[in-house]
């Protein structure tokens, strides 16, 4: 007894071919690399891998990565809230142009993002001599790493919030204000509850990129062990020294971060299905 195929359903052979191709593609480009990281990290046993993420240099890199994210994320949240409020709640000329400018860092190569701060704050840069006179280090120091990270993660929060706030309109806020609520009160009681999931989504993506940024940070860091090495830079140094277990052990830690990020992201998409997929 054969079942009639619905006219909009693909024939079985087509399904098999497509699923096989997709499977081969995803396995060779996504899944095997992920397995490689954990396999290489534990090649000499779990204790060796654990040792590699607990030694002094690794700890220093973990600490610096956490500090960088702890400054970058709140900064971009503050900026994202200001920018989305200004853009979504008022009408003014050149609005699309302003949104394009905020999105600009996504179109800039990470290496160029690092380079621009070297040109501004480096020894040969605009403020180089002045900074030298006042003994302030930005490039090859933590402030440069934070600045470069802020640049590459700049649009994440704003671009999640702008469409959400625009969709919501201004009626509720205008009602709150006309009943005597202050601007801040209006934001907390009316706007914030509507955008909180979108905000969390932006924070999640911003944090993942801040902890994982490599190109921009690599240009401004100077790779000083224990001082200006973030986790991704530590991975690079160990890898180039042929300490593969060490490199992949720290990489495995970053992989876990990525997996946690993806799980939380999937959960947020369940809570708020209209959350658009992050594009970077």
């Amino acid at each position, binding site marked *: 007894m054969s079942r009639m195929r619905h006219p909009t359903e693909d024939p079985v052979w087509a399904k098999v071919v497509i699923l096989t191709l997709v499977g081969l593609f995803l396995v060779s480009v996504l899944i095997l690399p992920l397995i490689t990281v954990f396999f290489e990290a534990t090649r000499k046993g779990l204790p060796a891998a654990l040792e590699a993420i607990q030694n002094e240099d690794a700890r220093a890199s973990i600490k610096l990565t956490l500090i960088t994210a702890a400054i970058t994320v709140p900064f971009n949240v503050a900026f994202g809230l200001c920018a989305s409020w200004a853009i979504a709640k008022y009408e003014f000329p050149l609005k699309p142009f302003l949104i394009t400018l905020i999105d600009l860092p996504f179109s800039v190569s990470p290496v160029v993002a690092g380079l*621009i701060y070297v040109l501004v704050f480096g020894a040969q840069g605009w403020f180089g001599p002045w900074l030298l006179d006042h003994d302030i280090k930005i490039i090859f120091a933590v402030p440069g790493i934070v600045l470069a990270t802020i640049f590459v993660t700049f649009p994440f929060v704003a671009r999640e919030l702008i469409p959400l706030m625009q969709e919501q309109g201004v009626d509720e806020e205008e009602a709150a204000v006309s009943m005597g609520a202050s601007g801040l009160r209006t934001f907390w009681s009316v706007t914030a509850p509507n955008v909180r999931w979108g905000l969390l989504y932006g924070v999640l993506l911003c944090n993942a990129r801040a902890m994982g940024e490599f190109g921009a940070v690599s240009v401004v860091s100077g790779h000083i062990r224990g001082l200006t090495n973030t986790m991704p830079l530590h991975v690079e140094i160990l890898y180039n020294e042929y300490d593969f277990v060490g490199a992949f052990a720290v990489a495995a830690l970053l992989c876990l971060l990525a997996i946690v990020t993806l799980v939380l992201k999937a959960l947020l998409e369940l809570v708020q299905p209209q959350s658009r997929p992050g594009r970077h």
Partner: protein
Amino acid sequence: MTATETSQIVASRRPMIRRRSAIPGFALTMGVTLTILSLIVLIPLSAVALKASEQTFPEFLQAAFNERALTAYRLSFGAAFIAAIINGVFGVLTAWALIRYQFPFKSLVNGIIDLPFALPTAVAGIALATLYAPNGWIGALFAPAGIKIAYTPLGVVIALTFIGLPFVVRTLEPVMRDLAADVEEAAASLGANRFDTILRVILPALGPAWLTGIALAFARAVGEYGSVIFIAGNMPYKSEIAPLLITIELEQYDYAGAATIAVVMLAVSFLMLFVINAIQAWARRLGQ
């Protein structure tokens, strides 16, 4: 004519002036936004153009388009283009499978598509380099045939494919979901076979989103650094990408040279931004 009508007409005559809003905070939030945007993004970006313009025009041309720089652009843009096309082909198949088919571990597969957004590029770089090296799990399959993947331009394509993978899938998915089944049914009931339906009904509807996804993947891949440098081999005139050339010139304290290549890359990025916006405007017109 009432007072409100008059004020509405006056307001409509002055479209460039901000509509007066009852909501407070415009000056503050706009001021903070513009200040931070200028300090973090616009002023530092202008440093690149200013640094590059310190040279004479022939010097600029020499720094921007010498033989080594040209081979680096060719690799960066060429590999990014090939990777974007690969993602275009497999992205449409992946999105189709995710929307239309049922298969085991579907939600897991759906979640892992976004891995390139979440995984640090350096981690992807060392994992891909190990996997596609001649003694790696995949590299070893090709080594007997004399095909080297890691440390050749082929490796660059692999890394850029990884980086661009989610763009095509994620831009296509919502369009495929909205694709009305009744149009397909109509085509089928009018006698079109499945192949005709796909070719003449489904693919044209996906066109703009598909192109947008491919363009986004290309734009991201052109500037990519972290995932590429571990697998590229980084041989001058052979497997050196343009962002790597910037870091090399920085290490040699050739700031003007580094800024020059950055200007060329920024010009391409802005061109891509323009192209993507044009595709999206075209898609909106088609949708109306």
